């Protein structure tokens, strides 16, 4: 009966209609395939680099007097560079997975990458916030010091509130959103790996 069924399944299996696309069409898709994958990477890089250039431009144009302003600017740029570095590194990881290993190894690598991603996202996100806030606070000092006491108080107060809001509301929310997604995937990939081990 088993043998009989076997032939029956194989027979059915191979009757599936298949349409082979033209090979040239496929190869013309290779470049599109690459472009789409790279687009969001480029967008983020360009956005943050443009912001950095804009900040440097402010430095040159307005010639800040105090060292605190300059340190502030450097910190802000540093924060963005760290963000970019992490972002680009995460992207690189994906390309590095060897697609020609066994399913078992491949799944384990996927889990590993996801775990690295999880670590980087949580910790780097916090570092990014801290450096950016510190940079902003220092940067503002020169301009706030020229304001009235009330003006300076308001400027710092509002900025400080914004930072608090980001730290306690936006950051945890962002992290949670990403974590939920990643945890879910890690769990799925681990489940699939277990299918092989059971």
């Amino acid at each position: 009966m088993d043998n009989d069924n076997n032939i029956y399944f194989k027979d059915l299996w191979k009757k599936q209609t298949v349409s082979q696309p033209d090979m040239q069409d496929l190869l013309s898709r290779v470049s599109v395939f690459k472009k789409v994958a790279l687009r969001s990477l480029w967008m983020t890089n360009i956005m943050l680099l443009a912001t950095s250039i804009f900040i440097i431009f402010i430095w040159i144009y307005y010639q800040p007097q105090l060292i605190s302003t300059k340190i502030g600017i450097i910190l802000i740029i540093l924060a963005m560079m760290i963000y970019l570095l992490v972002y680009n590194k995460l992207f690189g990881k994906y390309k590095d997975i060897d697609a020609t290993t066994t399913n078992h190894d491949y799944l384990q690598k996927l889990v590993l990458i996801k775990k690295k991603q999880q670590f980087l996202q949580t910790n780097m996100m916090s570092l990014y916030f801290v450096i950016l806030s510190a940079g902003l606070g220092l940067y503002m000092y020169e301009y706030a010091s020229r304001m009235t006491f009330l003006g300076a108080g308001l400027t710092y107060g509002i900025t400080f509130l914004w930072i608090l809001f980001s730290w306690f509301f936006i950051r945890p929310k962002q992290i949670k959103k990403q974590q939920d997604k990643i945890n879910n995937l890690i769990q799925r990939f681990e489940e699939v790996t277990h299918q092989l081990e059971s």
Partner: protein
Amino acid sequence: MEFETIYKTYWDRIFRLCMGFVNDYDIAQDLAQETFIIVWQKLETFRNESAIGTWIFRIASNNCLRQIEKDKRFPKSDLPAHLSEEKQTSIEPHIQFLYKCIAELPETDRIIISLELEDVKQSEIAKIVGLSEANVRVKIYRIKEKLTQKFKENGQR
């Protein structure tokens, strides 16, 4: 080996493997195309350490596993449910049922049974999936039992 030869020889087999994994004609077509794009990019790194078939099936099945991640981004429930059915009205219900049953199995079982039905040797399946041959044999036996059971319940035989 020439890419063109590989493409012509393996397209149908890879497509059926993908189809067994997702049971959705359009997604399977995409997965198969992605597979051949990877094959095209990696072909020069292929060093006869394994048979070319094993190598290609590894790429294809790993690419299917990556699909799990994409699944999360586009939950199937968001897609109109009748879409794929409409396209396949010409296919015999038996074939459709087989692919449906396979796509409902655990992910790695889908790959194993698809390779088996594709007449890939069990020793090769072991090398693709990363299990021992004995393990593969047991798994294939169980999966076939499950499929037979489903066909009986459904009165397909």
